[in-house]
């Protein structure tokens, strides 16, 4: 792998950039791999990457039905935070956040992690109490967050409307090192690094069946033919139940559409990420200048990557109420992704009833921020066959035992 740097760009400029090599190879499938990861989203690619980096397992294929990064990883609003309430969540998301800090250097690919600061607004007394609780919890979890008053909120976000009228802002939960990153770059950076380690990323290769014998996985059938494997990691977000069905088990997952939208680009007007859960909307500004906006999921299950218009209206209303200056800006584009929701809104990183088959899913509306940590924990689970401390609480058995990790307390919207 040729290293990227400003010098490399200058050098290549001399031949009009005709000398750049491929970011990742486009190989034909081999007959067998030690590990097959299904799904080349952020979580699948990160799983493969840390399998190689942390465990030296590089005979790995990442199998993707479309184009890598084309699922929710390439559709999300890129909010990164770790101000979670429950211990296991805070551990996992904080691991991810801290890996994001050095990810560009680690991957030699600029993922543009931008710890610009993140605010969760409190607009009811109930939220005030909830966020104060989170700050206290975060302190003991080693996550740096702070409760700030309305004055400080206004100073951080001058365009915000503090006084309501409907839901005056009473303060906010502030994570100074929360922020955003460039979603495509995360997928591409991992893909390039995986490919450089000799792993095969097989795009346009849809898994159609999971083959098994004696209670253990043997391989998969794909649109490019059968491939054998030692271990199988299913990391396909909204299509997890579909893959689970192929593997012969069921998952407590519902797939729903979550939408996002962007405005036309404008000069910088909001420097932090703001989430307003009472009114149900959140906003940040991309480096290109677009306001990146999202809200809640549709209330019904479906697989189309579109959503209902009513949610767009709700979200935009919430944000105009909070940021009146955006009223004359325009929506440039709206889209949707299929998110994999669990009952407790926490992910699943788990062994499965099928031997040597593992799942990583349930990230729902908020898994982009978790990609490096999830890959790290999943790689350990796949490599060792048992979860490490990061994944331990996220097993499937928690649903049977009632050991839920419920975050909905802390955030109505969990992005």
């Amino acid at each position, binding site marked *: 792998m040729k290293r990227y740097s400003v010098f490399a760009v200058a050098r290549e400029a001399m031949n*009009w*950039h005709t000398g750049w090599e491929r970011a990742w190879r486009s190989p034909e499938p081999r007959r067998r791999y030690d590990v097959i990861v299904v799904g080349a989203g952020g979580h699948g690619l990160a799983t493969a990457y840390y399998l190689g980096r942390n465990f030296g397992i590089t005979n790995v294929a990442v199998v993707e039905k479309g184009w890598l990064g084309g699922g929710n990883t390439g559709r999300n609003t890129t909010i990164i935070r770790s101000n979670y309430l429950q211990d296991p969540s805070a551990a996992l998301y904080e691991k991810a956040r801290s890996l994001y800090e050095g990810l560009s250097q680690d991957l030699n690919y600029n993922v543009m992690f931008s710890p610009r600061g993140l605010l969760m607004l409190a607009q009811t007394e109930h939220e005030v109490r909830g966020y104060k609780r989170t700050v206290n919890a975060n302190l003991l979890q080693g996550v740096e967050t702070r409760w700030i008053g309305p004055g400080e909120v206004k100073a951080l976000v001058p365009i915000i409307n503090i006084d309501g009228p409907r839901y005056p802002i009473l303060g906010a939960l502030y994570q100074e090192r929360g922020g955003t990153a460039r979603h495509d770059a995360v997928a591409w950076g991992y893909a390039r690094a995986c490919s450089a380690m000799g792993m095969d990323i097989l795009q346009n290769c849809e898994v159609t069946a999971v083959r098994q014998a004696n209670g253990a996985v043997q391989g998969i059938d794909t649109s490019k033919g059968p491939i054998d494997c030692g271990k199988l990691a299913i990391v396909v977000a909204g299509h997890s139940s579909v893959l689970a069905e192929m593997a012969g088990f069921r998952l407590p997952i519902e797939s729903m559409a979550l939408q996002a939208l962007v405005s036309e*680009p404008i000069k910088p007007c909001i420097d932090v990420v703001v989430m307003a859960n009472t009114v149900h909307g959140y906003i940040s500004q991309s480096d290109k200048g677009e306001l990146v906006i999202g809200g809640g999921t549709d209330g019904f299950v479906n697989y189309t990557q579109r959503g209902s218009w009513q949610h767009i209206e709700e979200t935009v*209303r919430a944000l105009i*109420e909070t940021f009146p200056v955006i*009223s004359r800006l325009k929506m440039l584009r709206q889209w949707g992704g299929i998110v994999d929701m669990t009952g407790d809104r926490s992910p699943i990183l788990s062994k499965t009833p099928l031997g040597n088959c593992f799942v990583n899913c349930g990230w729902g509306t908020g898994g982009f921020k978790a990609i490096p940590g999830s890959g790290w924990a999943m790689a350990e689970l796949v490599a060792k066959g048992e979860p490490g401390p990061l994944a331990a609480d996220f097993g499937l058995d928690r649903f049977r035992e009632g050991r839920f990790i419920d975050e909905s307390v802390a955030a109505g919207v969990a992005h």
Partner: protein
Amino acid sequence: MSLRLTTGGRLIDRAKPLSFRFNQRWMTGLAGDTLASALLANDRVMVGRSFKYHRPRGIVASGVEEPNALVGLGEGARFEPDQRATTIELFEGATAISQNHWPNLAFDVGEVNSWLARFLPAGFYYKTFMAPQAAWARLFEPIIRRSAGLGRAPDRADADRYEQAYAFADLVVVGGGVAGLTAALAGARAGQRVLVLEQTAHWGGRAPVDGGVIDGLGPDAWVRNAVKVLEKMENVTLRLRCMAAGLHDHGHLIGYERVADHAPQTDAPRHRLWRIRAGKVVVATGALERPLSFAGNDVPGVMLASAVRDYVVNWAVAPGQRTVIVTNNDDAYRTALALLDAGLAVPAVLDTRESLTGDLVQAVRARGVRVLEGKAIARVRGRSRLRGVVICRQDSAGATAMSETIACDCVAMSGGWSPVVHLWSHCGGKLLWDASAAMFRPDPTCPPTGADGAAMAVCAGAASGALGLADCLRDAHKAAGGTGKPPQAKAPTEAPIAPVWVMPAKAGIEARSKMWLDFQNDVKVSDVQLAAREGYESVEHTKRYTTLGMATDQGKLSNINGLAVLSEALDQPVPATGTTTFRPPYTPISFGAIAGEARGDLFQPLRRTPMHGWHEAHGAHWEPVGLWRRPYCYPRSGETHRDAVNREVLATRRSLGLLDASTLGKIVVKGPDAGRFLDMIYTGVMSSLPVGKCRYGLMCSDNGFLIDDGVVVRLSDDTWLCHTTTGGADRIHAHMEDWLQCEWWDWKVHTANLTEQFAQVAVVGPNARKLLEKLGGMDLSKDALPFMTFAEGTLGGVRARVFRISFSGELCYEVAVPASQGLAFWERLMAEGAEFGVTPYGTEALHVMRAEKGFIMIGDETDGTVIPQDLNLGWAISKKKVDYLGKRAQERAHMADPDRWRLVGLETLDGSVLPDGAIAADAGYNGNRQRNTQGRVTSTYYSPTLGRGIAMGLVRRGPERMGEVIRFTAEGRLIAARIVDQVFYDKDGEKQNV
């Protein structure tokens, strides 16, 4: 210099000059102008700067596809960035500024990016700015952010208002061109309810400019007639300035009507958003012309051929005095003819094809114009204004020393036409590549389908790829299910297009680095080729890596050219590359319109109890609770909120308080199976509750968690009244209906949410009975109405239900009266209660009193992870019942774990108030190096009754650890607190029982 022609201009009114300002300079335009035509008329060709390289940019197009001419429009509370000059109808006093430059349009420091362009190819930022680690966020990102973005955001709230409306039609025709009008006529004559939307202010679309004959008339005359006919039909609605923004599932079409953009002084809403349900949508949205990719095609003065003739014919503006035409199809010759007709020079037509024979070509040749076959533009001269073109053969590598330069100040280019298939595609309609016409057209066999599985949209006319006038009308007539003969058209025959994606075909890399595909985002042919080389082969990868088509024009000009270049680079046919997904809206629509009237006071409905106005008049400090507002307290002058709460608590405990409890949910459950139903919904037994009695009930989710609580009253044999929390009323009603409709659909039960039908007042305190007895009418004595019973009667002349329940621990009657009597009843209580010093109290006093009594509050003691057993509420759970919602869940291993955190009271050693949300750490760390914890505070208050802080909390094995002192962390401090009984006041409940 004015570039206005002395004659012509079908849309302008020369008798009505309009003054407008561009970059602080006053200029004059005419009624009917767009801002773009007016700017051109004033010789302002260069109007902006590109996104990345800050290159000079001129007007390219004449409509919604314009990528360059974006301006900031208006001032102050009516300022709006990124407005397309081509779609702004000029009005008197319009003020516009150009964008994305500093210090000014002509001289822009950001242009260094353009000189460095060679070092800034597609995706350079993914390869650089990585060292040192902190530099991205601290240094590079802020610089990039400042140089990116186009216009600036408004700096204050919007002064305009917006409206939303619904419409329903059998047939919605999108596009008011000749195809759309033909479809509308066909549909309307068949008796359908027809709605026609046209995004511009004019009917007719392109035909009046492009010419031809329809039913023996010129297009203008035919359009006028057609509109007249449609206007007279009762089943037809015509709407100008209304764009179909997006087609959603089930024929849900969003219309964006720009009601007052062209007349901002009126008090009409600025925009109106239509939510339209369409039986069927006819997409007659026409086609858009594609640019050609030659070196320097972004220099101001290079325009689409169709736009050049639009400016000449519609607005009598000459984009140039000498216009070179470059094309790969016959249509561009119409531009040559229009220019010649207007007396403007056409030094040459460069056609990439050989052996030209079409009617239009002949007509142009006949006018003495040089038509050069097999020719292309090698490069252009000029930087911020075009001065000439250097020509070469299309099948060559570019100019040679011998190459001719043609002086010109305008290039009219045409790379062919692409049907506007956006709406077709929004909801899943598929496309097919028509190689002979070099375009993607809708695949009629794969339309977007509606709820019934049938097609919900059909493309018509140019939008379906029927570019010739006669074909177009035939197609549109058929699309709308027309019977009889379609309008008959005559137009010149045209020779086929020859696709050209790179000009000249063998151009070297240096030239390819100057061929713009996406003008606004500065994406060049070389960038797409770089993406392909680096493995970003999927069209979505290329788009994202290069930003092709992601500008505010959403790739209307660039997408097809870009993916054709990508296909060539990958050596695969165009359909193998495919298109990116079309996403709504078709062109950007204002957030204001999306929000509609729901802003400020109307943002969300405000629910008011009958006594709301009284509270307001008496100085209530409000707290939002769901959509309601409840008084938090009633501070008197000079009182802090805290003072007021303390006063309210003490007054109530000592004598008499009143609480407006109207917001509490009141759901009536009735029917032969109502008891059985409630036994499933609640953890306790409600079927055995005698008529006239009240019982506290808990509701759990199927996962066992406590979701709501409240008092259930048996009103009659088959009728129960279920009180819920304020926030829970709608949620719980939906929860009940969910179970009734989805699981127990054969049970005979009805539910009704009567929350707003009653005003409810809690009359609380030792003098509560005395007050009510003063009103008279019912026997409220201890014997007649003991604790946890209910009676119906007339109280002080008002029909009332009186419940003897208490959430404060005091003697309490909750009195429900019809909502219409609520205020009068409340005022009566206040008046009659004066002798007892009656005090209205708010939600905070309520909280304090319930905490003093150790009562739980949903949302404080519960958070979705707590089961009733955790809260020592086992007594409210029936052990005998076979089943209730949550029962099985509560038997799971973790739920029965003795180590669970359970409810206790907490008292600080020094009497201070524990902070909200404090958490008790335990010794050691867990596997993830987090501090172990053993409990948390759930409610914490200053108790004026006890004169000290009191709290409740969940603590591991809490009830087994009475008297133990544990330490809580909050706000960076450690606070010691003793575990005590959760009931702080009147432990034996004597006061509520008197």
